[in-house]
């Protein structure tokens, strides 16, 4: 059993692979950000990625929808290999949603237009249908009354919830979260985490880079600990928080818990 499949229950192991990374390497100039990463995320699994800053965790999930291009190794998303083939990239991007640390909402569009932009232009949905779906999603993240406002008029927590709704509007099978709560004021973190927990319970496959240990403990099926571009340890929350094996993991957890 390779490190990538560590700590899977039998039931989980029998599910399909949604994201497979095999020996993924990535350089930024001379600096090697990923040194051969092996990770597998199963269908409907919630995978939390931990690690100190500069460990390559953001780079890893940005490689999965090709915002960064990996130089060696394979990345296979829902059976489609990520190569230079534009068709594969488009297929993967329309199936993988991503939520950013800085929200990256489109400031010149209203909340509703932010959400309907991709469904209308990528999925070619009629406007009325896209808007109905958008209102449904805003309902789900708890801010339907903000539909006509512009992103600059919302609080950070509301903006991040809009960003989640915007990703969900494309009906993705996988959601990537790149430190979704790191730019938020403390009192707004829980409203975003609640939405994410709700998503996880709904059976979404998720890969989450976060420092929110409470969220990791409660929601994650497995955790990955990375350092300096390597996967150090993979395990269940229980394993991580009671009995981590590696010295580096223990040191990291002792610093942040």
């Amino acid at each position, binding site marked *: 059993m390779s490190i990538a499949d560590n700590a899977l229950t039998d039931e989980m192991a029998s599910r399909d692979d949604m994201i497979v990374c095999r020996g993924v390497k990535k350089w930024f100039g001379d600096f090697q950000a990923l040194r051969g990463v092996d990770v597998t995320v199963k269908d409907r699994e919630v995978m939390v990625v931990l690690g100190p800053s500069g460990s390559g965790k953001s780079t890893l999930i940005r490689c999965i929808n090709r915002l960064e291009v990996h130089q060696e190794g394979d990345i296979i998303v829902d059976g489609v290999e990520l190569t230079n083939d534009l068709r594969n990239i488009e297929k993967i991007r*329309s199936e993988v*949603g991503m939520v*950013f640390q800085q929200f990256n*909402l489109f400031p010149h569009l209203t909340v509703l237009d932010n959400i309907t932009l991709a469904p209308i232009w990528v999925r070619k949905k009629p406007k009325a249908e896209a808007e109905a779906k958008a209102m449904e999603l805003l309902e789900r993240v708890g801010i339907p009354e903000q539909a006509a406002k512009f992103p600059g008029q919302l609080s950070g927590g509301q903006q991040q919830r809009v960003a989640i709704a*915007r990703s969900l509007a494309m009906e993705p099978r996988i959601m990537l979260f790149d430190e979704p709560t790191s730019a938020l004021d403390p009192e707004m973190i829980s409203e975003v985490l609640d939405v994410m927990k709700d998503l996880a319970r709904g059976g979404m496959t998720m890969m989450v880079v976060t420092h929110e240990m409470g969220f990791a403990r409660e929601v994650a099926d497995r955790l990955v600990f990375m350092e300096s571009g390597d996967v150090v340890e993979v395990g269940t929350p229980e394993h991580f928080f009671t009995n981590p094996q590696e010295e580096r993991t223990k040191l990291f957890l002792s610093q942040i818990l």
Partner: protein
Amino acid sequence: MTLTTTDPNSARARHARPPLWRNTAVLKWFVQIIVLLAVLAAFWFFAAQARNNLSAKGIPVSYDWLDDPANIQLGEGIQTVDDPDGRRLTMSRALWVGMVNTLRIASIGIIAATAIGVVVGIARLSNNWLARKVSSIYVETLRNIPVLVQIILWLAILGSLGKLTVDSGPIPGWVIVSQKGISIPRVFFADGFYQFLSMLAVFAVPIWWVRRRMRRTQEEQGGTQRIGSVTFALSLVAVVIAWFANPVMAFLGPVFDGISDAWAVIPQGLMQAVLSIVAVLAAVTWIRRFLDSRRTPAGLAKLIDDDWFRMIFAGIAALLAVFVVVRGWPGLSSWIINSGSDLFGVIGDKFGDGRGSRPLDAMKPTLSEGRFVNYGPTGLTMTVFYASLFFGLVFYTSSFIAEIVRGGIQAVPAGQSEAAAALGLNRRQALRKVVLPQAFRVIMPPLGNQYLNITKNTSLGIAVGFSEIVQVGQTVYNKNSQTLAVFSIYMIFFLACSLTISFVVNTINRRLAIVER
């Protein structure tokens, strides 16, 4: 709970009115009025000095020469010589021809420089190595050579072309390229055009009604109606019908003539009264709106001194306008009456006599005595003078616009393109829907500056003998020594151009502004 007193007397006691010399609202207005008066006084002083000095030399400043015959050699324009049976080419008419030439080159130049600049600016950020390098070389070369050198270089290049004949150029008879200039076939508004337009306006009403009905159906019943396609199809049908049936609308000619006649008999007193009422109504409306903006749910907010000053000024402005209309400048009213009548008369003349006529027509380039025909139905001609000024200005300015566009696009955070890519938008969609709309905010103000530059730089036409306003004006004051009068005309003309451009750019800017809170 001692702080929450609502007794108005005690509140007023604490906010006692400061003495005038310490009241910021009073001081602000006082200083502005003083500065305004000082500026007017200085202007008056210098104008009087200049007038006295020039009178002493025997060349008093006047504008009487505007109606003199021009006797000027104009290179090109809407009128270059006395019409045999129409308008004489007076000094004022010659200056007007120069202004039209300036406006022609500035407006077309702005459009061309923007189009080229946007393409080059985007190409500088392309992933394509060749496009990136070529556009970099374009920008770095053109913006680092003085524009005057470029204009003269173009004149030299174009002047080295072959002699002008009907067959010179890539497509003999149709496209002429020669040392006298470039000419292509021109599409122009023919006799039926205004009938065609008015017919389209009539058809627009039912099309608009159908659109509204379809939209309402869509809102009520859901589903998708093909609103866009239906509108397009109906418009196409309307254009085809109007193209052939436009003589029906010829009856509008006499209608406009009637309006023209009716307008002409408006008594001057009535026009003065109407203008005065409009001025007073405008002030009253302004004051009412202003008071509305100071109204809160709890009633009218307490007006501060500043507010009173504004309302008083609005009132004074209205009274001043009434005075100007009634006593100061009675000619204004008769001018409005005369030009209004002229305007409707001109529109009336545009309508044909009901016989079948095409709205649009085309004309091949024509020559007479080895020259381009300057006037009347002929091809669309760029003389070498026009072309060298045009190419010089457009290419030079487009290199700056390219840099502005590149800077604007790069000012949009990378996260925006990433978010668009993560949602599955392709590069073109991301550029059009996400990046460019945000880049426009950054691009617009410096772009407006370039538009002002291109307009002002048309005065370099003097170097190649293109008859724009400065060149024509120079010829005029060389003849009659009315330098100051001509320069005052320059200033007013360029100021009007610049203020128009600024106004348009500022309006667009306000529309594009991102709502922050």
